[in-house]
């Protein structure tokens, strides 16, 4: 006779069932739990007797029980105090030989216990971290890394868990420091980089971990650390930007509400609506919260001079370094060193002589070397050190015989070096190099022109007279343009401020109302500052008048005028006129006398900067003016010129912290040789839809796409044109057969509608 099995007695279907019941009523099922727990213990014991030879069914059973107990352990904390320790011990001792699934389950169970707060994060990570370093299994490492990362993320979600972070950071640090030669440090590098990217770790301690990594003695760890400094911050920014624009963010609450009104009302849908609303609210809150200020890793470094020196001495300088780095890795290190030197204006003299042997066109990836060299030049490097390098580049790269791309790379790199330290150039060499602007090769031409325009700005006296150009020549004559001496530091000023002032003058904007408006545009939060009369009062008209007064006086003296009355009148008028009229008056009395002009210029600048707080609107305008000025200075005629203009604009907007790349050094030479078929195809495919590139489509198609992207629909004309032919037939047929009365009614209706302005009438207008 076949016995009927009750659902409870089925072996396999049982544990989840029991688990469910246990969670509902832990007390009543305590006995069952005790039974299962003892079963787990006896199975564990069996397993421990022969960890490698236990058969499949035993392992499966143990796995199920571990799963079961870890899910229900929080109901019986007293009975299961030893459970987490058991799991830790099992993993610790047998991780190498465990069945993979059981092993993963054990890790999962530990994480689950952490989520239920049976164990704390430190305990969990102290178990997983050594395991990550020990285990030979790739899968387990991936799993462990992911779990460690997610645990760190969750424990930092609500507030930064400083204690935990410090603990893990010091573990990472110790890992690298304790054995610099081992490749295990890579895990510390990986973890730190990932957490840096997610902005969970953004402090100096994380940076010091990476610093140690960069100074370690394993090639992979070194490159990991160096790459972090070169690209970690950019990665972080990108991740943050991605987070802002992810599609979750664009929840249309109105649409969802509308749908909820129409669709069947279920608990699930109501929940979805609620969560969506909560998400939108959170997003809004996040948007309004003050932006987190993150320092870049390069700025958080403690003792950059020491770091740069050590990097150089350890990895680059010795002929037989402890770590064998391939060229690519060496280049990365070099890039970092030169970046540090350029950014912090460090003094590292052996670095420059190190470059010399690499500066030949045959050297692989020489453009990267050139970029690094240019990057490491700054205003505090003695010109004597840089000059031989410049000469060497000129000799090796720039000659009539060398290929166009070689010459342009050389010229570009010389320009970049000289932009940072203009004194590294002698006049004969410069005059020689500038002659290449007559070259046939476009790339060389452009590069030479770049050098020329640079020296027109920073050292026109080195150029031949006819090369100086009008502005530079005039500037030289009036003594306005003078070559900066070594170590001279310019007076701090806001770049492009004079442009802004000029614009303001032209627009006739100088009133207080405008300033207020500028602030109003800024932010909803600063609306409370509306009663900013105090700010405006600070702008003391009296001072301005004083300045203009004295100017006037001096001018008068210079002209040796004995006319007392006009002077008095001028004083009077100056005393009465508001601020808006003063610039006009000063312009009227402008003279060509150099000293006076200089004085006036100074006073003008200082006036705007010192008397007014620039509103955000002002700053935005300033930026705009600056960029347009740069563009209009070299108005494009051909496509290539346009490209150059875009490049110069990009260069002018480049921040001092941004790195110099090999691509910038090779510059336009990319266009100077005939592209191969593959390159052409790639160009047509990739860069096509980017701005500025030719996307090989008709103007209409492009316009249409633009319209669509702006969310605009078609015009009436277009609708008419596109209307299905068959739909128009009926009307066309009837139109000829209308009676006169019908025709009249229709005409009347038409006139009526014209009067009203459309069928519904444009009442609003």
């Amino acid at each position, binding site marked *: 006779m076949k016995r009927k099995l*009750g659902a*409870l*007695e*089925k*072996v*396999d279907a*049982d*544990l989840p069932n*029991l688990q469910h019941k246990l969670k509902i009523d832990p*007390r*009543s099922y305590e*006995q*069952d739990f*005790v*039974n*299962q727990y*003892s*079963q787990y213990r*006896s*199975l564990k*014991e*069996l397993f421990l*007797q022969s960890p490698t030879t*236990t*058969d*499949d*069914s*035993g392992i499966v*059973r143990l796995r199920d029980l571990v799963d079961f107990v870890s899910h229900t352990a929080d109901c019986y904390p007293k009975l299961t105090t030893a459970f987490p320790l058991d799991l830790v011990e099992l993993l610790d001792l047998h991780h190498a030989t465990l069945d993979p699934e059981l092993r993963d389950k054990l890790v999962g169970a530990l994480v689950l216990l952490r989520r239920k707060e049976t164990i704390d994060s430190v305990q969990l990570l102290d178990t997983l971290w050594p395991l990550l370093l020990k285990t030979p299994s790739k899968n387990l490492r991936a799993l462990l890394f992911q779990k460690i990362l997610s645990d760190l993320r969750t424990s930092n979600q609500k507030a930064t868990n400083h204690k935990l972070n410090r603990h893990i950071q010091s573990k990472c640090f110790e890992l690298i420091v304790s054995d610099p030669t081992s490749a295990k440090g890579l895990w510390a590098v990986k973890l730190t980089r990932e957490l840096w990217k997610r902005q969970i770790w953004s402090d100096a301690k994380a940076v010091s971990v990476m610093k140690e990594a960069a100074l370690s003695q394993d090639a992979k760890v070194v490159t990991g650390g160096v790459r972090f400094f070169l690209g970690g911050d950019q990665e972080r920014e990108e991740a943050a930007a991605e987070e802002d624009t992810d599609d979750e963010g664009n929840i249309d609450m109105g649409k969802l509400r509308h749908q909820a009104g129409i669709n069947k009302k279920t608990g699930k849908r109501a929940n979805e609506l609620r969560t969506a609303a909560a998400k939108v609210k959170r997003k809004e809150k996040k948007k309004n919260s003050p932006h987190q200020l993150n320092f870049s890793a390069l700025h958080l470094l403690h003792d950059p001079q020491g770091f740069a020196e050590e990097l150089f001495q350890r990895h680059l300088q010795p002929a037989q370094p402890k770590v064998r780095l391939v060229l690519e890795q060496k280049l990365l290190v070099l890039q970092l060193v030169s970046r540090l030197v350029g950014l912090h204006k460090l003094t590292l003299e052996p670095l420059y002589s190190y470059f010399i042997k690499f500066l030949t*066109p*045959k050297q*692989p*990836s*020489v*453009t*990267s070397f*050139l970029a690094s060299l240019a990057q490491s030049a700054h205003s505090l490097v003695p010109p004597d050190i840089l000059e031989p390098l410049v000469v060497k580049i000129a000799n090796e790269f720039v000659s009539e015989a060398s*290929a166009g*791309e*070689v010459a342009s*790379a050389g010229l570009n790199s010389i320009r970049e070096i000289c932009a940072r330290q203009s004194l590294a150039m002698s006049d004969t060499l410069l005059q020689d190099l500038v002659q290449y602007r007559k070259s046939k090769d476009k790339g060389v031409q452009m590069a030479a022109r770049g050098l020329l325009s640079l020296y027109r700005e920073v050292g026109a006296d080195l150029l031949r007279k006819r090369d100086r150009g009008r502005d530079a020549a005039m500037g030289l004559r009036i003594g306005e343009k003078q070559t900066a001496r070594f170590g001279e530091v310019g007076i701090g000023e806001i770049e492009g401020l004079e442009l802004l002032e000029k614009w303001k003058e032209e627009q006739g904007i100088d009133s207080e109302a405008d300033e207020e408006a500028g602030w109003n545009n800024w932010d909803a939060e600063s609306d409370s500052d509306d009663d900013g009369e105090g700010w405006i009062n600070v702008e003391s008209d009296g001072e301005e008048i004083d300045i203009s007064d004295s100017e006037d006086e001096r001018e008068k003296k210079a002209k040796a005028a004995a006319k007392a009355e006009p002077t008095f009148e001028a004083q009077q008028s100056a005393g009465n006129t508001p601020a808006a009229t003063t610039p006009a008056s000063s312009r009227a009395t402008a003279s060509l006398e150099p000293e006076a002009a200089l004085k006036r210029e100074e006073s003008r600048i200082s006036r705007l900067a010192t008397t007014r707080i620039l509103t955000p609107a002002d700053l935005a305008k300033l930026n705009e003016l600056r960029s347009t000025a740069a563009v209009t200075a070299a108005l494009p005629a051909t496509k290539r010129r346009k490209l150059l203009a875009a490049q110069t604009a990009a260069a002018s907007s480049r921040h001092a912290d941004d790195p110099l790349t*090999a691509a910038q*050094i*090779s510059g336009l*030479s990319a266009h100077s040789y005939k592209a191969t078929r593959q390159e052409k195809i790639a160009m047509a495919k990739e860069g096509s839809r980017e701005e500025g590139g030719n996307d090989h489509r008709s103007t209409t198609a492009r316009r249409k796409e633009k319209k669509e992207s702006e969310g605009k629909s078609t015009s009436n004309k277009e609708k008419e044109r596109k209307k299905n032919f068959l739909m128009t037939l009926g009307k066309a047929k009837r139109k000829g057969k209308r009676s006169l009365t019908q025709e009249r009614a229709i005409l009347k209706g038409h006139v009526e509608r014209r009067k009203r302005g459309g069928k519904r009438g444009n009442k609003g207008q």
Partner: protein
Amino acid sequence: MGSSAKKKREKKSDFKKTKLKVGKARPKNTNATDTSFAAKSIVLKQQSLSESGRDPPTIFNHNLSLLASKADTQRRDALSWLTNAIPTMNATSLPQPPSAILSKAQPLILDGTASVRSQLLKLLRVLPSDQLGPIDQVLLYTRAGMSHLSTDIKLSSLDVLDWLIEAQPESTVSCAGGWVKTLETFEKLLSWTGAKGTTGSLTGDGKWSATKPTVSLGSSKLLVHQLNSLTTFLNAGLVRPVRNEDLLAIQAAQCWPLWHFEAHLMPTKSNPYGYLNLFGKPRDTKSEMYEDPEERQEAFVTSGMYRAFSQDVTEARKEGGEVGRAAAGVAKALQLVVDVG
């Protein structure tokens, strides 16, 4: 025509020098080996399925290895083959020693298929009982089976326990962990924890009364079996070997001037002063070996199980019927302790 031109071009291209571009990485060598492949599968040699032409020991070993097979019918067939084969062979001429057979077969105590388990029991019965070797492993599996979730496995593992006691009563109770741990398993199975969970008592927080969970739903078959096995187990553990006074008198007479000379001989059991625990770790009383009935009795009493058992057995007796009769057996076995202490 076309192909020859193409060939010519190909031949020429060997001697062409690739133009290096400034600042670009060197192109890869033409003889570079691509190592980015991975093996997709491992091919095994063909398995031979024919049994003819193989000598008996090979077939025996083959069947023994089939005990770990995935298919339950295969496991059962292998078991029945072994059950039939072992009695026909002489105990000394077995291709594998009985202890090895046992260690292969013991995981099947926890097998999910009923037919395999019943067949396993048959196999165990035919094994020569004096050559089983250390049995603490089997006992581990048996205990795991006794606390299993499925009633069928519980029942069959009780059968295995009965067989063990029958085959090797002394080593069953005296092996490491054999005494206290097995008793603990019984304690948990019967939920005989003494006063803690008696009927109608209040729960821990004193708010509500909890009924004692019923062990068996509907049938009392399992409970009866458990009680019976407990009885045999207690008997095996607590009954002392009968002292034959006459025999002792004869022995004493034989070595007459000496008196109590056994006490001065070299001890016959290992680690005679182990109970002092002079150099060992703190005691793990549960997994220790208890070799004497006295030791076992003391462990039984000091762990508090004796009190709990005797308290709960009286209640079980009150149930009457089959359960009551089985409980009476347990009570009788418990009296062995009372007789002595």
